[in-house]
């Protein structure tokens, strides 16, 4: 990109500057720290100049927006056409309560839905299962049968709004329920749009809501890829998630590497199952974290796009442009929120949201100020949504594509993060791929998490309100509380549904799922049939548990 003679002159000038102008200042006063480094341990220079980029080939490294390798963004004009989708992750208590929150958020200008399910739902247990006690409706909405799902999306036009569902091991069942609700609303299934998370590998690595062992889990995932490519073409069939890997303590470089390693495993599994890469790859989506280190996070998004494009083209031989484009959702980092001085979280989230916008996210969830204490109340959620709206509408940050592209610093970080992630990818390949490297990744994450905590305790990592600028404060008021009696009411509701349905037909449908599970046929049609008859999530997952067995975690500590 630069004239090499002129770059040489910059290098010479920089050397002189270091010895002279800068040297004099350093001789008088030491800097705040002996070393400056990013979260991923990239050592930082005082200032970045053209010579930091070396032989920078613009075409190869950046290209133009909407063109390979998509470093600058997947669409040619990005937010000049349409802003990112403002999609607040929401769900608690009953389907009625969550439906009310959804509709409130839509009224306030949210442009897409994102549904949080409670832990029993995420692990395939009905609300009346003994292990569900105390968990019903707590971290998300409780869904047992299609009846709950009908209430959840009541008065929400599924032909017009896109919905993201954070559901993994039982993703096929929740997708089936969504399809049937759309049918009942009269919306053709090829018109519904949304995302299921459906990313089991990161559940084994970092998030914990797995059910089945890897092999049948991968089969369910490829069944969904295949089914949706034929019948639900606008659905994102997976959201390959670095978010939780980062929340578990990884660095930015590890977040890119482990996420893309999981992505490689899914693509390979689908190809091995006989699918054409260009048929399913355009519906793969990603999910990243917006953490604290402003420029490194922006570089992370850019590096991930470039690396994935190369992987799809060179490793998997994808031909279609859409197969190579990494599209992603972002959530601001929950682990950076503090219970102390919670209003300060509003500021953290605003910067994190800006990182996501400058990094070219396709959709965004902004956390609420009170989430280190409880699920957010309505007021907190509104501020979080307004934060996105300020970035989109008021400050001009969405008017130019990839505005930090070409910054010597950001390009240098992008290059270094890509290189660090590639090193990890090579290591994971040598271990036999993501499935074989689960414990390796867990150990790496845990080491990073512990180092970070030690940094907090030594004061090297400053957390405002926790280890610096502390104040005496009153416990916060107005936190959202989920009624503990809700579990009982939800069990009653399930009982009524079971009494009112055609139980012989349900048993036959469940038996059919069992039979299909024993073949290599696609499970989706059988699951949709059962869901339509109001078979419960726990019943369907129960049959598959019996057929597939359950995953046993190896404890890495």
């Amino acid at each position, binding site marked *: 990109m630069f004239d090499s003679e002129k770059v040489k002159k910059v290098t010479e000038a920089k050397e002189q500057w270091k010895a002279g102008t800068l040297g004099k200042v350093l001789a008088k006063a030491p800097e705040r720290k002996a070393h400056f480094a990013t979260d991923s341990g990239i050592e930082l220079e005082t200032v970045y100049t053209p010579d930091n980029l070396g032989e920078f080939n613009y075409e190869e490294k950046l290209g133009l927006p909407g063109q390979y390798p998509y470093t600058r963004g997947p669409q040619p004009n990005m937010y000049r056409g349409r802003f990112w989708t403002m999609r607040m992750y929401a769900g608690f208590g009953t389907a009625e309560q969550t439906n009310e929150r959804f509709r409130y958020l839509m009224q306030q200008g949210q442009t897409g839905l994102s549904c949080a399910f409670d*832990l029993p739902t995420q692990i395939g247990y009905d609300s009346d299962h003994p292990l569900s006690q105390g968990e019903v409706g707590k971290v998300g909405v409780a869904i047992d049968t299609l009846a709950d799902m009908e209430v959840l999306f009541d008065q929400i036009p599924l032909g017009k709004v896109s919905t993201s569902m954070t559901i993994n091991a039982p993703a096929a069942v929740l997708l089936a329920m969504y399809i049937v609700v759309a049918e009942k609303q009269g919306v053709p299934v090829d018109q519904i749009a949304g995302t299921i998370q459906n990313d089991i590998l990161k559940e084994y690595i970092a998030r*914990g809501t797995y059910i089945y062992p890897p092999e049948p889990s991968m089969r369910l995932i490829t069944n969904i890829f295949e089914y949706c490519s034929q019948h639900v073409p606008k659905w994102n069939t997976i959201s390959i998630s670095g978010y939780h890997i980062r929340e578990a303590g990884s660095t930015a470089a590890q977040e890119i590497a482990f996420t893309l390693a999981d992505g490689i495993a899914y693509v390979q599994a689908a190809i091995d199952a006989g699918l054409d890469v260009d048929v399913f790859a355009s519906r793969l989506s990603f999910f990243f974290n917006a953490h604290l280190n402003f420029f490194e996070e922006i570089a992370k998004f850019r590096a991930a796009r470039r690396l994935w494009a190369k992987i799809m083209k060179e490793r998997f031989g994808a031909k279609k442009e859409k197969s190579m484009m990494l599209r992603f959702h972002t959530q601001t980092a929950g682990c950076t929120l503090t219970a102390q001085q919670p209003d300060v979280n509003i500021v953290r989230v605003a910067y994190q949201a800006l990182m996501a916008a400058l990094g070219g996210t396709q959709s965004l969830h902004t956390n609420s100020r009170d989430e280190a*204490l409880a699920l957010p109340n309505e007021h907190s959620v509104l501020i979080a949504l307004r934060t996105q709206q300020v970035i989109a509408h008021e400050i001009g940050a969405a008017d130019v594509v990839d505005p930090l592209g070409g910054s010597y610093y950001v390009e240098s970080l992008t290059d270094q993060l890509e290189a660090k992630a590639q090193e990890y990818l090579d290591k994971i390949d040598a271990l036999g791929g993501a499935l074989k490297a689960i414990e390796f990744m867990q150990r790496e994450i845990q080491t990073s998490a512990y180092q970070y905590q030690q940094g907090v305790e030594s004061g090297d990592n400053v957390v405002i309100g926790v280890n610096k600028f502390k104040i005496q404060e009153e416990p916060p008021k107005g936190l959202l509380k989920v009624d503990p009696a809700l579990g009982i009411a939800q069990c009653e509701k399930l009982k009524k549904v079971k009494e009112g349905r055609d139980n012989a037909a349900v048993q036959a449908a469940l038996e059919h799922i069992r039979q299909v599970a024993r073949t290599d046929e696609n499970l989706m049609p059988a699951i949709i049939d059962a869901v339509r008859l109001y078979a419960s999530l726990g019943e369907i997952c129960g049959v598959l548990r019996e057929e597939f067995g359950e995953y046993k975690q190896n*404890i890495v*500590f």
Partner: protein
Amino acid sequence: MEKKPIRVVVAKPGLDGHDRGAKVIAQALRDAGMEVIYTGLRQTPEQIAEVALQEDAQVVCLSSLSGAHSHLFPSTAQALKAAGLDDVLLIGGGVIPDDDITPLKEAGIAEVFTPGTSTKDVIKYIEDRIYGGQER
């Protein structure tokens, strides 16, 4: 005189999958010279009591970020009692609102540590309770 290492079980009760905090605490306690057993995810109160019994634990640390603490922590206290482990020091941590702390203490949870707690404070608390001769 050399003190015998304190024996600790770190456990994740219920369905919650967030184990960053539990693992950081487990590692910090181990680095402080304690013998630490980490149970892994999805433990029932009865399973935790069983591990505490098998491992001859002096301390059980519970971690929950799913909001189910008001059910799971007292159930674990009862399970420990049922296993005859009344003298085990039971403590808990996680995303726990202030309003819930008093009822948890009344149910037999000796101390509750909320977000932002230094591992040093947890270590000091355990050492004071075990070496300070203040066991229940």
